[in-house]
């Protein structure tokens, strides 16, 4: 990184490095890593060899929405393409550039929260190592039309630390879509990503992460969402790639009227493992949160869901819901669910539900009677099952993009005959 980094930033990186070294590696028996595959945290194996990659080819492969409001392409945390038709007063810059031009604004929001869902060590590593990412700041009253689209490509046996910091001002609106991919199917890489999302008063912030790394790469994604008075934050995670992905999503409802939607669709196959930990933190009264995670498991795959709704002492009149559903498509998959509640206030309506089951023979029979082959029938039902969470985004263009990735995954599963 260039020498123009602000002093506060280099100081924070140094203390983060010390923190990374002092925090012990998670071990078996740690409650936050219950059911987790601790072996996945051995990162030493990567050679660090980065291949020469044809950037123009990567840019050409970075397809997403028809016409995004802005589009950034990163290759191993380096910007290789930018395009923007955003209103002038919206700041949307690579983090390295934002640190130079808007140092104070970045400092005010950069990694302020304590990581409490198990990966504090890796959050520290991210902070110590982060080089780039995207900084989005939407001023008061500005509603961004369309979506900001970010492509992150991972190339070679290396580790990347993409950072995303989004801040929305009063009564503003923005949607950011991030897509994580590998440049080839065979090189193992590691991505330790961190997302800082701040939804200001009465604003709307939609954040979508599509994770389609190759099936030998790993990812840790930590997300901290803060939702202010009357604001609406919506986050969506799609997992189709990676050999192992750990998502830690914390959503804080800071002031009355705040609303947070937390959505996810995961479709693991083969030996893929998705480990998702969530925390719905109701700090203030009259807030609500709604979580829906849907997993469809093929092959020998495994999922872990650990969710907690936490209602603080004075946070009366909280509405909080949490649902995790697992659909089993093979005999060898495994789902672990730990849906939790911690309620310290009354006058609340909270519930959680978790189910796991397979498709009933009657349902397949019904579709077969209408001329649809059993394999196709299963796929159709699994797709419809995932769509329920996607539709909650209520934006056709975004939904279509996510469904494209979902359909591609189903197509891969169908051709592999899993």
């Amino acid at each position, binding site marked *: 990184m260039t020498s123009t980094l602000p002093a506060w930033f280099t100081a924070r990186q140094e203390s983060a490095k010390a923190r990374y070294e002092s925090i012990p590696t998670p071990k078996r028996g740690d409650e936050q890593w219950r059911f987790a595959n601790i072996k996945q945290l051995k990162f030493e194996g990567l050679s660090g060899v980065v291949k020469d990659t044809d950037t123009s080819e990567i840019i050409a492969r970075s397809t997403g929405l028809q016409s995004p409001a802005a589009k950034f392409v990163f290759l191993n945390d380096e910007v290789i393409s930018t395009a923007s038709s955003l209103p002038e007063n919206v700041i949307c810059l690579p983090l390295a550039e934002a640190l130079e031009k808007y140092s104070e604004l970045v400092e005010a929001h950069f990694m302020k929260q304590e990581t409490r869902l198990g990966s504090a060590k890796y959050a520290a590593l991210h902070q110590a190592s982060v080089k780039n990412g995207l900084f989005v700041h939407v001023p008061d009253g500005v509603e961004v039309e369309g979506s900001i689209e970010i492509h992150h490509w991972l190339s070679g046996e290396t580790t990347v630390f993409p950072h995303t910091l989004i801040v929305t001002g009063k009564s503003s609106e923005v949607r950011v879509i991030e897509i994580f991919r590998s440049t080839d199917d065979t090189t193992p890489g590691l991505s330790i990503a961190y997302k800082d999302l701040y939804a200001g008063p009465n604003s709307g912030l939609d954040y979508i992460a599509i994770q389609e790394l190759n099936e030998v790469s790993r990812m840790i994604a930590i997300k901290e969402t803060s939702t202010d008075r009357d604001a609406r934050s919506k986050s969506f995670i799609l997992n189709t790639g990676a050999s192992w992905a750990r998502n830690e999503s914390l959503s804080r409802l800071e002031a009355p009227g705040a609303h947070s939607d937390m959505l996810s669709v995961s479709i693991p196959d083969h030996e893929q493992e998705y480990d998702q930990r969530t925390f719905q933190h109701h700090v203030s009264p009259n807030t609500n949160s709604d979580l829906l995670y849907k997993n469809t498991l093929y092959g020998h795959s495994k999922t872990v869901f650990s969710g907690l709704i936490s209602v603080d002492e004075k946070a009366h009149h909280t509405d909080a819901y949490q649902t995790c559903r697992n659909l089993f498509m093979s005999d060898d998959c495994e789902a672990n669910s730990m849906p939790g509640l911690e309620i310290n206030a009354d006058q*609340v309506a909270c519930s959680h539900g978790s189910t796991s089951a*397979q498709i009933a023979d009657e349902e397949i029979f019904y579709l077969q009677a209408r001329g649809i082959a059993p394999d196709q029938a299963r796929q159709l039902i699994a797709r419809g099952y995932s769509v329920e969470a996607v539709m909650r985004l209520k934006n056709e263009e975004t939904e279509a993009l996510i469904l494209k990735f979902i359909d591609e995954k189903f197509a891969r599963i169908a051709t592999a005959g899993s």
Partner: protein
Amino acid sequence: MSFQDTDSAVLDAETKDAIDVDRTKGDFKFPENHKFDAGWGLTSATVDYISDVKDDPDWVREFRHKALAVFESKKTPTNWATTDLDNIDFDKIRYYLSDGQKPKRSWDEVPPEVLETFERLGIPQQERAFLAGVEAQYDSEATYSNMKEELSKQGVIFVTSAEGLKEHEEIFRPYFGKVIPTGDNKYSALNSAVFSGGSFIYIPKGVKLKQPLQAYFRINSESFGQFERTLIIADEGSEVMYMEGCTAPKFETATLHSAVVELVALKGAKIQYVTVQNWSSNVFNLVTKRGLAMEDAEVRWIDCNIGSRLTMKYPGVIMKGERARGEVISIALANTGQHQDTGAKMIHAANNTTSNVVSKSISVGEGRSTYRGQVHIPKHLKGCKNNTECDALLINSSSRTDTYPAITVKGNQHATQHEASVSQVSEEMLFYMQQRGLNQGQAMSLAVNGFINDLVREFPMEYSVELKRLIDLEMEGSVG
């Protein structure tokens, strides 16, 4: 006036009164009269003392010593449980107190103050009214143990655990410590080292007990730990219902109760185990309970926790035979100064096994209730089903409730569902009842009883009446 807005300080005083009213029944004590006292603290000498007094066979003495080593090596599980556990000072507890008498077969032979204790608790009356047999434990040992004569003729065994391990070793030993191994957790290891009292029950093939057997556990001494050990074996096709009750006077210092209960239901057998726990609010109640259900067998835990300072209890069922069934029905009431940390463990280990967990908790004042559950369905099985429901009711604005389930399902031939909800009594409901002439307290009591009514019906009739009364008393004064 809205009950949620009630000043919590006023409310606490009133809640306290409610507890005191309730506790008078069990809150009395007699002077201690012990011939045998293992003294304070726990060392291998304590274990030897207990073994000497009880004249243990060598294999039991060895079992105790091994368990003591396990207990000392295990950490207090505060990585997931409450740090209140750190407040137990194992050096300030007495581990064995008894008068050295064998349990009596007739109430007439029981020492007068002990008889008066159980008379006041209503045990002899209940025995005459509806029980098939009673064991009454006073501190470390059973003081009375009797069963209807016709049952012994049928081959039913109902004795203390000490008698069981000596007189019936051939049935007792193969199952003892097998359902709950010593190292299961720190407190099961503690119990294995110093256990005394509790029941051993054997129901022969095909015998179906029409009336329940009952055990009553009474703590009379201060700074004392009660460690009873119960083993129930229901042979093929037999049925039994076992009920346990417990009380202790309220002391300033902490009292520890750490039991281990093992149930074995052989092919086609049914065991129902009913607990109404009403310890005084200085008791740490750390209990390990688990049942083994073989082919077509059924184990049901019906559990009600009203008393104690901290209860940690997660009755479990290991469904080892095909079509075995496990069930936990649980009611918990946590008042100010109490933490009811209860739940269930369902381990599916055979095809087509089904389990059901229904848990309802009520938190009053500053009380805290926690549900912790585990459901495990391994990969090689087919057709396993689990249903879990847990509902929590919060009465006051400083009441707390937590839910921490963990469900593991492998393979696609199973179905599980888990649901939990948290709610409070709606103002409309209270208003409606008040309009019909009930005062606010009565309305609240009625609403709470309605909340748990479907579970209370699972208890034997004599208990469900008692339970409703207890809950009424606990709720008294909790609303302004």
